[in-house]
């Protein structure tokens, strides 16, 4: 069927072309359409019978003259040619070169949809990745093979935070450049894309970088393929070439909106806010491609960035993401307004894999308790701050005033740090002890008695 072209499109509407008189076309077949102007469009068979084949056209059906449209069914699924030469290259959203260099030549192609990992083949992620950011390393740490998104909002410095993580990420005892980076941008401005490119370039990492870019003014539907193409490259690099791959994807909100657009065209029943009920499974197909595999050396660590519409964490996109990913790093507009960078709101942030990747075997034996104490003390401090806002700080007792000072110092000195400042995890932990020492020692009940004896600076400031 591959070499046959058909001109039997019977109707076109809302991004769908229906072909008549082409029996035996398989579901999920890739389609190439050449319109009357000779331009090529891409599509996918989403419904098929001998009588009618429904094709979803990624570039849309606007301006299609059915009489003069030639349709060809390609016998393989959407796939990406893979080889070591992926490194250092820039592709568009569907994996075609956009750096002016020739396409990847390789005998190997991989279906960009991937296939579900057998849960028995996974290896649980345990190795601590040091990002050099105290808010992450100390309290929401990342492990190799984890999927940990950044929840952000318009105007917040998520790009800078993501770029800093990419620059600084390293395993303890390793050089920072152990990683290769796969970067996928969809629906972002060329300025944002440029920012990342420059930032990678600065760290000299271009030859360790693969980029997939679908910018804001490029076909929306291609966005559905971009993260998949990027993860296909990542899987190849990680599980066939043994690289540790850090995948940064931005902006998942643009992806989900593209999915909604297609769902509306298809007439799918909407669940919440117009998003289709299968948004969850669709996002999971993407996010679950991160991880580690037994007896393989490489890994995929995934950092999706998404902007929360109206800063609303209960919006379906962050909500469903949070249900799938292994935690989330939440950026706060309030901290940002106070000039604190990175503006990580530590309480709603979470790393689910932290508990298995820290402590004596990985970082330092006091780490789990220090983190737990920081959370408890800061939560309490915020409560006091709330109270102070009502009754006035003057009316607080001596103990409570210490909590206010602690909150201040914690935000400015622990969460806040320079964009070029790389703190190792021990420095973060030592800083934590210094700050915790501002509080009465008896209140630090999450810390072990031996740890207190060893690390607490009993002299109160």
């Amino acid at each position, binding site marked *: 069927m591959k070499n046959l072209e058909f001109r039997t499109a019977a109707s076109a509407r809302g991004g769908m072309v229906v072909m008549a008189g082409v*029996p*035996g*076309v*398989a*579901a*999920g077949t890739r389609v190439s359409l050449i319109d009357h102007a000779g331009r090529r469009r891409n599509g996918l068979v989403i*419904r*098929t*019978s*001998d009588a009618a084949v429904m094709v979803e056209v990624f570039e849309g059906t606007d301006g299609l003259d059915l009489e003069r449209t030639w349709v060809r069914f390609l016998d393989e*699924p959407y796939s990406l040619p893979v080889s070591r030469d992926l490194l250092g290259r820039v592709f568009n959203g569907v994996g075609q070169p956009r750096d002016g260099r020739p396409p990847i030549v390789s005998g190997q192609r991989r279906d960009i949809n*991937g*296939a*579900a*990992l*057998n*849960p*028995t*083949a*996974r290896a*649980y992620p345990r190795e601590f990745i040091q990002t050099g950011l105290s808010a992450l390393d100390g309290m929401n740490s990342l492990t190799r093979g984890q999927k940990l998104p950044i929840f952000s909002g318009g105007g917040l410095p998520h790009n800078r935070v993501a770029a800093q993580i990419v620059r600084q990420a390293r395993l303890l005892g390793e050089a920072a450049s152990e990683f290769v980076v796969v970067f996928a941008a969809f629906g972002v401005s060329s300025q944002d894309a440029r920012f990342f490119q420059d930032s990678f370039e600065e760290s000299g990492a271009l030859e360790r970088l693969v980029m997939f870019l679908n910018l804001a003014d490029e076909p929306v539907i291609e966005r559905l393929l971009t993260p998949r193409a990027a993860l296909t490259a990542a899987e190849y690099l990680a*599980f066939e070439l043994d690289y540790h791959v850090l995948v940064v994807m931005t902006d998942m909100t643009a992806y989900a909106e593209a999915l909604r657009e297609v769902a509306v065209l298809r007439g*799918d*029943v*909407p*669940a*919440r806010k117009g998003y289709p009920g*299968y948004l*969850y*499974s669709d996002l*999971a*197909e993407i996010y*679950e*491609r991160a991880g580690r*595999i*037994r007896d*393989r050396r490489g890994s995929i660590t995934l950092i999706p960035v998404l902007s929360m519409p109206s800063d609303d964490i*209960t919006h*379906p996109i962050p*909500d*469903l993401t*949070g249900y*799938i990913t*292994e*935690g989330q790093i939440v950026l706060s507009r309030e901290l940002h307004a106070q000039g604190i960078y990175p503006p990580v709101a530590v*309480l709603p942030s*979470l790393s*689910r*894999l932290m508990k298995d990747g820290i402590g004596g075997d990985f970082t330092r034996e006091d780490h789990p308790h220090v983190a*737990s104490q920081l*959370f408890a003390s800061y*939560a309490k401090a915020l409560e006091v701050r*709330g*109270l102070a806002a*009502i*009754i006035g700080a003057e*009316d607080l*007792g001596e103990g409570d005033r210490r909590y206010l000072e602690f909150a201040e110092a914690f935000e400015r000195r622990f969460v806040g740090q320079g964009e070029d400042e790389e703190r190792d995890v021990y420095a973060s932990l030592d800083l934590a002890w210094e700050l915790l020492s501002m509080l009465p020692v*008896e209140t630090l*009940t999450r810390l072990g008695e031996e740890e207190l004896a060893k690390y607490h600076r009993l002299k109160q400031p």
Partner: protein
Amino acid sequence: MGSILEINGPLVRLQLPSVVLGEQVSVGAMGLVGEVIARNGDTALAQLYEDSTGLAPGEAAVGLGHPLSVELGPGLLGGIFDGVQRPLEAVRLATGDRIARGVQIPALARDRRWSFSPAPDRLAEMVLNGGDVLGSVQETASIAHRILVPPDVSGELLELAPAGDYDIDATIARIRMRDGSIRKLSLSHRWPVRQPRPFRRRDHAVQPLITGQRILDTFYPLLKGGKAAIPGPFGAGKTMLQHQIARWCNAEIVIYVGCGERGNELTDILESLPKLTDPRTGRPLMERTLLIANTSNMPVVAREASVYVGITIAEYFRDQGYDVVMVADSTSRWAEALREVAGRLGQMPVEEGYPAYLGSRLAAFYERAGRVEALSGEHGSVTLIGAVSPPGGDFSEPVTSHTKEIIQTFWALSKELADARHYPAIDWLESFSGYVGQAAQWWAANVDPGWAGARARALELLSESEELRRIVNLVGVDALSSGQRWSLEAAELIKEALLQQSATDEVDSYASPEKQYRLLAGLLEIHRQGIKLVDLGVPARRLLELPVMYEARRWKTRYGDDNLAALRERIAGLAQDFMKLEAEYAPTLATGEPAQGGAS
């Protein structure tokens, strides 16, 4: 033999005249399996358990003659199966790290032989009925797998195999059915998953399920055979709580259904359970556990089936006389799968896209929990614990609200508590249990007669503190009397020293009923001692400075279950901690005046 007419995602329309609703079909060259969900004349609509990419109209389709069913017999325990009971370990060995489509591997290993001992009192010519025990296989060191006559078989026993080693397909008994036909029975049989397995009668649930988690066992108990839900937004701790239950609960068999959740969470269980020992049997916990995995990236149609596969296996062990716990993480993903199927069938959505029968499906599913007298006369139970993942954490959404009507124990997780790292983040005001009365009898008989009173007192303090906190937030702490201030602190103490329990703490991850009660009693005793002093005019501020207020927060991690005598002793000596203050304020015998001006 029929053929494919149309393919639309996981739905295929087939030219296949003789199939019935619910029947399994195999389609295409890949042999993808699915089930018939609608019929119309000679055509049938089927949904496939696997992705249909590559399937073409005109390819063959056959009806398999049976509904979705599971294989029940020795070899289930310790295993991990997908949503339609394919053995994932064997699938991996056959097809590699990624799940290939169209793999057909039977659930139970064919090459393994089991040592079968016939039941001594089974004699030829005896009439046997469905559910009767034919004999047993020692499947693990602690679980004797009873080989049952399938529920739909009864008749005269013609022959029962002698003790010996048999594989899963070997005939171990022959039975002449009422209609004269002969049925050969083997160590395993199949049962359709959407049909509850029959039993003689329902029993009253009486025994609490002990999980070792204080907020569950002490405050919102569940009984063996009961039904519970764990609703909560993402990150609130549903999965951790279910893992804790799977680890520590005092059931004999645990079935963990990972329904539409993360792959790594199953890996976590697979890596950790074999290393943990069951304190009751001394055996690795994995031996009593069975996993069903349809992770979020696996096909949605099989997700809908996975909870039925799990509950049917649970009923099968119940019928052998075991107490089984099934945890399902998450029932919301199952409901969403149901919604997708309904949407494709064009059924009218009622709320948030869900079909009108969501509530009745949920109820029918939970109805399969319970403690029963099995057909064999044994008593067994299925306890069902479902996580619920409400969108946006909104408990008024359809799945949460329907589930709340059905279950008896509701463990409501709160984002506020989780954000403050108060774990388990169970909201003590919003949670409830309908089993407190029965649980109280057990606690009174087995731990301490004071249990019900102490529990009620602690809950009272907690709800009172909520009210006091509101006042403080309005006008500051100075508006409270010393007594109120003390109650507020006592509630704080209960939250931190009792309710909070870290799953990752070596000592406190599991707390025995005895430890749970001792801690509760000890903390209430602190409160009581304090009240005495407040009545003497001691300002609450002074009480808060007592070292015991901080020390008590460490009791849970300091006193393990092997060291409860020391905890009892510590609590018995509590009066000492208050003595100095008491002496300071107590009226002296001579004057009846406070020894010191107890200025506040």
